[in-house]
């Protein structure tokens, strides 16, 4: 039985992704990079990232902005001639980046109150995108729109209010706590 220390970075990426074995089949054809609507902003194309994973460039891969620019549109996944679950690998890389502590910004506590916080505490959400925004904090982006936008949203009855809570929050929290416990054990299996 291999322990986590025996597993290469590549092996861990594969193990953490359902269907991840297909990663070994990458032809480096670039269908993913060509299909990606956000490809222009990525520091490496997905294909490039896969070559880096094979080369065990763990640190550089986990510091890449590529997974964070992934918009989960699945264009790469459906076009990949080797049927690699690329979008799911991006999820895995984000998760590994967070665990590796590359998720380092001063507002980490705020982050827990945002999207995930609401989902975990109330079972419902009100705004997507916050988690990623916090990660990319050190890539300064234009946030101009927020002020005017809020006013307009309010006028049209579309302001994101704090979400309602589901009834059986306890059940959800018990499930999530158990899932986290299993995940912690499973991570490098």
């Amino acid at each position: 039985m291999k322990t986590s220390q025996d597993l290469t970075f590549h092996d861990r990426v594969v193990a953490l992704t359902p269907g991840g074995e297909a990663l070994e089949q990458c032809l480096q054809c670039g269908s993913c990079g060509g299909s990606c609507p956000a490809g222009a902003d990525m520091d490496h194309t997905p294909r490039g990232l896969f070559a880096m994973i094979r080369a065990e460039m763990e640190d550089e891969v986990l510091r890449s902005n590529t997974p964070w620019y992934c918009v989960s549109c699945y264009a790469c996944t459906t076009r990949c001639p080797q049927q690699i679950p690329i979008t799911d690998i991006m999820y895995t890389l984000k998760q590994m980046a967070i665990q590796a502590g590359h998720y380092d910004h001063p507002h980490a506590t705020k982050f827990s109150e945002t999207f995930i916080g609401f989902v975990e505490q109330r079972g419902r959400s009100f705004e997507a995108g916050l988690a990623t925004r916090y990660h990319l904090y050190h890539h300064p982006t234009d946030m101009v729109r927020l002020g005017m936008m809020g006013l307009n949203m309010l006028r049209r009855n579309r302001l994101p209010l704090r979400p309602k809570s589901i009834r059986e929050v306890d059940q959800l929290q018990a499930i999530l706590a158990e899932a986290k416990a299993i995940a912690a054990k499973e991570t490098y299996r």
Partner: protein
Amino acid sequence: MTRQAYTYYPGCSLQHRSHAYESSNRNVAQALGFDLVEMDDWNCCGATEYFSLNRLPAYALVARNLARAANEGADELVVPCSACFLNLHKTDKQMAQYPDLARSVNQALAAGDLHYTPGTVRVRHLVEVIISDIGFTELATRITRPLYGLKLAAYYGCLIARPDSIFDSTEHPTTMDRLFEVLGAESVPFALKTFCCGGHMAQISAETGFEMIHKIVKNAAENGADAIVTVCPMCQLNLDVYQNSANKLFDTDYQVPILFFTQVLGLALGLKPSDLGIGQEFVDAMPAINKISEVPPPKPKRERRDKQALPMPVMPE
């Protein structure tokens, strides 16, 4: 005839930013004679965020909904939001595909006294339900106010076409285009019909997001669309709310309203714009709606084939 009732998972967006979609869904269902019964105590699907952070809790979060729907006796779950649809459908499919995953997810669900057997609940998108279960022929008989003269761009976005094409081509879907023709409207060519709206990108890296929005709006406008029609609250939000920001960034002045498919369907069924949530959009839809004519537009003359031209490839029906 018994009235068809569907177990319904509205998703968070429809409760906050996309009331318009919710009200048009409700009223269209009413008009078409079926019920959308909201499942009890559903929770957020996790959008795209949760899967990024911790895979297993994300699957468990989604699976709680599937398990509860199954406990209610539902064998189908109807979802109007493409992102929720994807997460629910994908979790069901992957649990079936990867038994190890199913085992872990069920271990987590057990902490809440739940269990889910993959394959129990068939996850369906509302647009597919209306098109397959009611069908174009039946829909055609229900039209009271044909949308003559209205040019629509059918925008499918990503998540009903990918990663699993449930009822249409992944790359070049056409069901919504056919729906528009049934409604009396014209479906314009739209190369970017499955191009991504940017998802949450507009809130993360505005320029990246706005560029994607700009491309889609530009392509629809250049093809003469009076409105873009979507099946997803996230797509509607991006294209509508950020259209002017994108205009500013690219120095353009597109004003293409973004409607939900149930809104245009509702109009053709004779429902009032206000019953369909029309008026909550940022880019005003009324100029487009006012274009609807009482009479069908004249049939375009068939262009004579240029003698020199080579034939186009023969396409199957």
